């Protein structure tokens, strides 16, 4: 071998060494990834956008060097699986199998988002307990806290962000405002016939009855219903002043169109998913003017009076484009940060240590101040002290104006022009 050949060989060996040694050296510094499992009904808009928010949070954290576990910086890795539990007709057992598949194949250290439907979350709580899987979930049934409270030791791995009871709380405040400002006392309730929305409907019905409101009717529609004329006719005939809708199905936009077409002289105030995002005005036009909607968490709508919500909203729209859903993205984004903070405090990924640290969470997020009580986000009226939902009204020119809570309100509730 000549001198020239030796030099070439030395160069090749050097290049190969450098090529392969750099990633290994990085891996030693970075450590293995911390896997966040995301088992949910990802083809549904809300879950899909929440999944994007989780990825956004992970990207931001990784860009800052990852998560410090003891003395090792470790990157976050998001592993999602499609459970289809939010799609009609999909058996619960299929969703449970998908969750278990994620646990066995991807071996996540914690779960964020979780199943879409409440019924599946309640079943998954046992799976979380079996696998000792810390999880921060979204499905909203009040039965979550009930089940957790029955056996806190077993279900200590389960946390949850939003509870339907809080939505009831916000809606009751809106009704109080409507009563005070306009003297409204007659309401018609119309909900989607699924667990979370009927829970809100039932809660509101109880509140109305206790507060001398006259409930003129209470209709439940199966998912996929596309004609709401009977409800609107009954509401009009009964002289309802407020229609309280609770829907997350795509066809519920028809309800609002029919409301406007049929000139029903009642204010629409509740929760309708298709009207939630900033694009709804371009989709439905001025037919949605005057509708009052609840965004279940700040951050899914930017707030002038609470900067972290705007910061998240802008980061999300910059990364993924316009947000359309009114619940899930911001809370899941915050949950990743809460989880990471808990891991760093625990200095370990041991599920029991991690759970104890998640319980101690007290941080400012895009949804407001994040704290847990009975493994559930606490919601209140001031984002500086608790998480908040935001009630807004669609006003002229497609503006979403926050009207409640007062701490972040940017305007007052107005009757739509065609009702005056």
């Amino acid at each position: 071998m000549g001198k020239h050949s030796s030099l070439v060989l030395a160069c090749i060996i050097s290049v190969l060494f450098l090529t392969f040694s750099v990633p290994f050296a990085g891996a030693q510094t970075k450590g293995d990834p911390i896997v966040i499992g995301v088992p949910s009904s990802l083809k549904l808009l809300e879950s899909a956008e929440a999944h994007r928010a989780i990825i956004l949070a992970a990207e931001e954290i990784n860009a800052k060097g990852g998560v410090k576990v003891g003395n090792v910086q470790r990157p976050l890795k998001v592993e999602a699986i499609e459970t289809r539990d939010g799609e009609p007709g999909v058996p619960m057992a299929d969703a449970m199998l998908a969750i278990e598949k994620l646990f066995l194949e991807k071996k996540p250290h914690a779960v964020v988002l979780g199943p879409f439907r409440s019924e599946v979350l309640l079943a998954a709580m046992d799976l979380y307990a079996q696998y000792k899987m810390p999880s921060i979930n979204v499905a909203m049934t009040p039965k979550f806290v009930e089940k957790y409270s029955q056996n806190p030791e077993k279900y200590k791995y389960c946390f949850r962000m939003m509870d339907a009871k809080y939505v009831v709380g916000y809606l009751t405040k809106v009704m109080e405002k409507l009563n005070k400002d306009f003297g409204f006392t007659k309401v018609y309730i119309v909900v989607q016939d699924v667990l979370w929305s009927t829970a809100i409907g039932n809660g509101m019905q109880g509140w109305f009855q206790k507060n001398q409101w006259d409930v003129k009717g209470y209709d439940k529609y199966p998912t996929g219903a596309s004609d709401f004329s009977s409800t609107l006719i009954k509401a009009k005939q009964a002289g309802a002043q407020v229609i309280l809708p609770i829907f997350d199905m795509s066809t519920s936009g028809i309800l609002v169109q029919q409301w406007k077409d049929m000139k029903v002289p009642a204010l629409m105030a509740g929760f309708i998913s298709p009207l939630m995002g900033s694009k709804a005005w371009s989709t439905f036009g001025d037919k949605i003017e005057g509708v009052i909607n609840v965004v279940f968490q700040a951050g899914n709508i930017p707030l002038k009076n609470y900067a972290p919500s705007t910061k998240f909203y802008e980061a999300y729209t910059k990364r993924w484009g316009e947000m359309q859903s009114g619940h899930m993205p911001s809370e899941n984004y915050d949950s990743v940060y809460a989880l990471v903070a808990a891991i760093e405090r625990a200095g370990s990924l041991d599920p029991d240590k991690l759970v104890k640290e998640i319980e101690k969470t007290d941080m400012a997020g895009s949804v407001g101040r994040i704290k847990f009580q009975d493994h559930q986000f606490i919601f209140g009226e001031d984002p500086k002290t608790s998480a908040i939902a935001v009630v807004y009204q669609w006003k002229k020119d497609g503006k979403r104006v926050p009207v409640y809570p007062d701490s972040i309100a940017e305007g007052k509730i107005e009757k739509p022009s065609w009702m005056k």
Partner: protein
Amino acid sequence: MIVYGFLNSVILALMALGFSITFGISRVANFAHGGFYILGGILTWFFLMKVGLPYPIAAFLAVIIVGIIGGLMFRVVLIRLRGLELSEVIATFAVGIVILELLRSMGFMGYEYRLPVFIDGSVDIFGTYVGLQRLIIVGVGFILLVAMHLFVHHTKTGRAFRGVAQEDRTALTVGINPDKISLLSLFAGSAICSLSAIVILPLGTISIDDGYDVLIKSLAVCIIGGLESSVGVIVAAFVIGYAEVFTAMYISSSLTMVVTLATMLIILLVKPSGLFGKSKEIEERV
């Protein structure tokens, strides 16, 4: 209730008409009906919003494309399965699922997928305000029925349709090619399905899951009316349409689908071929 029962019935009839025409002529139960319905809506939305074509051209293209896909489905898949009814059902159902789930995986989810109404506004009919789009649906349904009647009674191809519908082997003896007519029936049924989507979908947003609901509702209407009978479809649509509105008005809106399916069961118990169907009676006579 009378006004909205009527409107609801026309919407159901329009939804089911394509399915009934295809089955009536070719005896193919097109379970891809729901997939074609949503595809028609999405194609129109795409041509309208993304390509920027005028509404009538976007709609025309969507109708033709879905019709061609229906014809191709017959030419490529169903022609090999002729006579194997269960296989035909499974094959068409698979095509429908592939269309719907492909659209879903392509990202067609969300609330911005909506066709604009043709004319905005509402009118007062007997003291009830009705959106103009619903009246347009009634108009389109009526025009379609008249056009179909003229076509099958006064054109050569239309008469060939009727010939194959009555007895395809006899039609063959007089020079009508049943396979060609069946292909055309798949084209026509799919195109009508797409047209119905274009006029009905502006009422709400385009959701992939609605494809499955449309199939179930169309099936219910056709089975109650008699699978091969266009008159039966219209009568059945009115039976179900009014039953749904009556249920929502006086019993419970959550039971509308239950009532639809229960009505179907009761009618099948009394008349196994449906209200205007003949197949079971003929079979029993033979």
